[in-house]
């Protein structure tokens, strides 16, 4: 199927990397973080890039998933899998009840409401110390195990998280290129026209909000088990903005772009350790200049450049 061509490349790359560079820090450690970020960016892109609904509070749902897993497994001795499921259900309920009134808003108001939601969730994580461990966080989270196969090495975590990423990407690509995905994109193009084509814009918006939140929650649970430790800092307003930056950098309304943005922004601080003080400055500069000079993002920009080069070549070949 044509819409999955890029996906097979992605699968090949994900398989080959650890084979070519076994036990490489940048593959099995930074790479895992990048994959986790990519899951989040792909889900946010579904909401922001395709459906055109900005969210500045996506880290909140990531946090709900992470803390549901952390609290239930450490404090109540739950098995990680039902804990993860509980996190998903809780996220779904929160996203569904708040999604409807929030997504009635547009533009700046929507931005502010999602931002407020994210901050409220973060404050709750800090303040309910008896449950969450407060600002100091919560440690000792057990690792995952699947039919006796414990996920206890970097390579195994790579396998698990990259598999989840690939599964999420596959599902999202299928959605985008089908009836429900077209409804999402129509919402972005023109809400009035979408309504007139029989699309219930209210349920569609709530639906995509819930779906994006569920994916973020799943990523949160994985993050908690992989790190064995969670603290509210990982789910702050700043992380929500970082996720937005990933989506914008790679290119809105491009799933591969979101992955690319996540990879770049995860590796950039690693590679620029020397410039640690410049990190914040560079982040800001990227966000601003991308939106001003290349609002379609790097991935789409590169695609266009590539196409231009290709047509030049064929023209030269013909002449």
């Amino acid at each position, binding site marked *: 199927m044509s819409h999955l061509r890029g996906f097979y490349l992605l699968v090949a790359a994900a398989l080959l990397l650890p084979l070519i560079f076994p036990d490489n820090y940048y593959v099995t450690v930074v790479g895992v973080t990048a994959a986790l970020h990519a899951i989040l960016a792909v889900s946010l892109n579904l909401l*922001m890039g395709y459906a*055109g609904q*900005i969210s*500045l509070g996506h880290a909140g749902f990531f946090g709900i998933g992470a803390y549901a897993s952390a609290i239930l497994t450490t404090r109540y001795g739950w098995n990680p899998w039902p804990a993860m499921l509980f996190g998903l259900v809780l996220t779904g309920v929160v996203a569904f009840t708040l999604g409807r*009134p*929030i997504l*009635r*808003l*547009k*533009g*700046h*108001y929507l*931005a*502010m*409401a999602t*931002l*407020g*939601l994210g*901050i*409220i969730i973060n*404050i*709750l994580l*800090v*303040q309910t110390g008896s449950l969450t461990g407060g600002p100091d966080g919560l440690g000792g989270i057990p690792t995952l195990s699947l039919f006796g196969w414990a996920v206890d090495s970097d390579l195994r975590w790579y396998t698990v998280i990259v598999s989840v990423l690939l599964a999420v990407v596959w599902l999202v690509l299928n959605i985008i290129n089908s009836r429900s995905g077209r409804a999402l994109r129509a919402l972005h193009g023109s809400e*009035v026209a979408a309504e007139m084509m029989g699309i219930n814009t209210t349920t569609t918006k709530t639906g995509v909000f819930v779906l994006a939140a569920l994916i973020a929650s799943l990523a949160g649970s994985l993050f908690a088990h992989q790190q064995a430790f969670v603290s509210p800092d990982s789910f702050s*307003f700043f992380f929500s*903005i970082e996720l*937005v930056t990933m989506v*914008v950098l790679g290119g809105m309304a491009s799933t591969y772009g979101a992955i690319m943005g996540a990879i770049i922004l995860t590796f950039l601080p690693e590679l620029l350790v020397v410039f640690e*003080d*410049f*990190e*914040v*400055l*560079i*982040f*800001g*500069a*990227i*966000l*601003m*200049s*991308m*939106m*001003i000079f290349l*609002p379609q993002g790097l991935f789409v920009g590169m695609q266009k450049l590539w196409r231009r080069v290709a047509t030049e070549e064929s023209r030269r070949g013909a002449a």
Partner: protein
Amino acid sequence: MFDQILQFILTGITVGATYALVALGFAIIYNASDVVNFSQGEFVMLGAMSTIALSAGNGLPLWLAAACSVAMVICVGLMLQRFAIAPARGASVVTTIIITIGASIFLRGLALLLWGKDIFGMPHFSGEVPLRIGEATLLPQNLWVMGGASVLVLGVHYFFNHTTHGKAILACSCNRTAAHLVGINVGMMMLIAYGLSALLGSLAGILVAPITFTSYDAGVMLGLKGFSAAILGGMGNPMGAVAGGLLLGLIESLAAGLISSGYKDAIGFVILLLVLFFRPSGLFGKASAERV
């Protein structure tokens, strides 16, 4: 109990006056250019930080340091308009939101680079001997904040209602093309609006810094609070934004005192969400019909 509440109210009005100035800055830019400037809080931080750097670091007298830093922040505001907002004209709301968020992160990064992560204090303008009102106390600096904010708010009110430039900016917000056609220099009006916002932000920062201290990331929460206040009062109405600021300051102070200080920010945002859900035009704004 009464004295305690009076104390919360006095604190609330001081904090609220700061929010009001930030909210006013938001409302001015929003009304002039339909952009929500997420870097408004950074103006506040830059005003305070650069004043401290100039006075403590370079030994300038406080008033001179303050004047220099206000001028500098105004330049930052003008540059923001000229190099970040103006090139993206006609872009979607999402685009402008991300640009101004980018600008705010950039300015924060700049402050981090220049001054590090330390928390800085500023000397009080006229001593720290508290005034007594019953059992409640009030620092002279609180009066500086309230007085300064009042003067600025009245000044802005006069500017928009009684001067040609002020009215011209409002005209740009109603209809840019029409404003251009009647001979208003739209580009210049945008610069004035951003400069004015930067002026308000930096002065707010300088006035409140002796009480709250400041650091490179102090602008984030202040910016968000200012934006909440502007929405609370109604974005379309600058004086509504001022009222929203005062109200938010009061609510937070009372919530912090009577409920829990840890939840004071959360309560502010919960109220923001409720206003957005039930009265998106703000408490003091006029409801606007949606056009199809």
